[in-house]
């Protein structure tokens, strides 16, 4: 599969009478976007706002972060199964608005996490303090149940991102990257001496607020399968995951997966990047056994020499991670696993809820229990009402002077397990 990804650098977002992109500036008329959100009768109202890097703004509780894209050549459209039909995507040409994101916020449940600070120490922990953020805070109709509210906000985010992405159609990109994977036989013939490397992407799939979708299908219902990473760039995988802010994978990170980027950068040079394998993280132990068996089998059938395995979340997924690692290694395929740690506030506790000697090559996104104090900021997009109730916070979180003492697990993307975060031991 071959995908050309045209990148249009967005340098500013402004509200205006006409929605358009001109000289790198995204002009948005909220009245153009509001009907797109309100077409779902479960949403009573939506407020749009803009947050820019360096501003004294806190966005919370963040639900999803999405990069606007539009498909201009090739089969299908962006977000198949949601805003487009379910044609197989990942080929042709796609345009992406770089340097910006659509951020959905809204209090679906009272303990929902997710903080993006655009300035101060908190901004150093989230990758989304560096993007221009078009924020949408959705208000549900009276009495709407949590499941319905989650689905409504999730889908509204995709519709808005797709609508904004459409503005890029016809615009010449600032840069174009080409991503191409070969068929199995072709790849072996083309790169006979290079190690065959795959990427196992574990998707959060436990239930309400913990779900991921593939071509519109709830991923807890899938058995592991192979997918071209270029399909994911076109929005084949989207997030329905609201909690565990630090190590959930928002849709944006699926679209811009750093493991995929790095494997493509080495493709044809030091390795042959064969494909992405997607698997799930169900709560039922027999499902875990089945999925890890299938994943290991796929690695063997594809004659892989090595895989990178990334997980999403903490606790329950640690068991899937270790099952995958053990079984893939037992098939003679080397693994590197990418995770994060809950090592306690002092960093002295066991980092993962599961472990095995086969997991001898581990990359960490950082300790989610690390404590920091976030400054009081001038403006909040969303609401702070339940900030004491979220994970990594306590009754003393909101101090009298307006500062917040929290564990970094409350910050969106802080310890991301695809390596999208910025923490480093360097």
């Amino acid at each position, binding site marked *: 599969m071959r995908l050309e990804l045209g990148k249009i650098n967005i340098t500013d977002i402004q509200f205006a009478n006409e929605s358009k992109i001109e000289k790198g500036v995204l002009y948005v008329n909220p009245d153009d976007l509001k009907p797109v959100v309100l077409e779902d009768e479960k949403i009573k109202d939506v407020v749009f706002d803009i947050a820019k890097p360096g501003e004294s703004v806190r966005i919370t509780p963040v639900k999803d972060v999405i990069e606007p894209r539009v498909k201009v050549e090739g089969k299908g459209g962006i977000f198949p199964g949601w805003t487009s039909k379910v044609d197989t995507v990942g080929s042709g040409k796609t345009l992406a608005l770089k340097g910006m994101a659509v951020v959905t916020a809204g209090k679906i449940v009272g303990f929902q996490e997710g903080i993006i600070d655009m300035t101060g120490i908190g901004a150093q922990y989230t990758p989304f303090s560096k993007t221009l953020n078009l924020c949408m805070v959705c208000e549900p109709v009276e009495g709407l149940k949590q499941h319905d509210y989650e689905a409504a906000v999730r889908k509204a985010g995709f519709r808005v991102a797709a609508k904004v992405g459409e503005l890029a159609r016809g615009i010449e990109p600032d840069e174009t990257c080409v991503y191409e994977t070969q068929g199995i036989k072709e790849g072996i013939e083309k790169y006979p001496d290079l190690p065959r490397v795959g990427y196992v992407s574990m998707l959060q799939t436990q239930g309400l607020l913990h779900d991921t979708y593939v071509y519109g299908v709830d991923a807890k219902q899938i058995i592991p399968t192979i997918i071209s990473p270029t399909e994911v760039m076109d929005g084949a995988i989207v997030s329905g995951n609201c909690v565990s802010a630090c190590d959930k994978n928002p849709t944006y990170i699926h679209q811009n997966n750093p493991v995929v980027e790095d494997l493509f950068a080495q493709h044809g040079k030091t390795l042959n990047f064969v494909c992405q394998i997607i698997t799930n993280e169900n*709560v039922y132990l027999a499902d875990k056994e089945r999925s890890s068996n299938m994943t290991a089998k796929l690695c063997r059938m594809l004659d892989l020499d090595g895989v990178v395995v990334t997980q999403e979340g903490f606790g329950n997924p640690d068991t899937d991670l270790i099952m995958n690692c053990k079984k893939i290694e037992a098939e003679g395929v080397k693994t590197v696993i990418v995770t994060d740690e809950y090592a306690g506030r002092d960093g002295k506790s066991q980092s993962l809820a599961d472990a095995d000697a086969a997991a001898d090559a581990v990359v960490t996104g950082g300790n989610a229990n690390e404590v920091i104090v976030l400054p009081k900021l001038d403006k909040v997009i969303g609401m702070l009402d339940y900030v004491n109730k979220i*994970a990594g916070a306590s009754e003393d979180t909101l101090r009298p002077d307006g500062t917040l003492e929290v564990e970094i697990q409350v910050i969106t993307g802080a310890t991301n397990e695809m390596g999208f975060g910025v923490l480093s031991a360097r």
Partner: protein
Amino acid sequence: MMKQRECCTRFARGILFFYGDNKMKYFILTNNPMAAEEFGDTHDVRFVDGRLIDVLIRARDLINEGAVLLSHPLYGSVKPNETPFRSVLLQQGKSQDGELPPADTESVRLIGNAVSAFEKFIDKKEVTDPKLLEDFMVVDLSLLKSAVESADR
């Protein structure tokens, strides 16, 4: 409505009887009142009147007596010191000649890790806000349902 529910339950039990040991027999250990309400009429629910850690410790005791874990005790990204509720699916161990069955090593390992993981999170004050309590119950129930759907398939 109640009659219909009783009928369904009887039908379900009939199926269970018909398939005998091939059909998974399990019980739900929970301290979530919403879960007990949802599954009380159709499943074997054993309610724990206590905190989340009490559910884990009760599960650990039962596992030591031969019960087998069917769902992950650390399910959900809602942290164990945050949510007051937890539900666990367990399969009753079969006694052999009146003796307790041997403990399932994998279940022992998983429940031990879960109790250890719980202990490293700082203790937070008890949740009293009714709306918040309901949200925690709803999420726990949703995660439990995804396990029950797999078990009942």
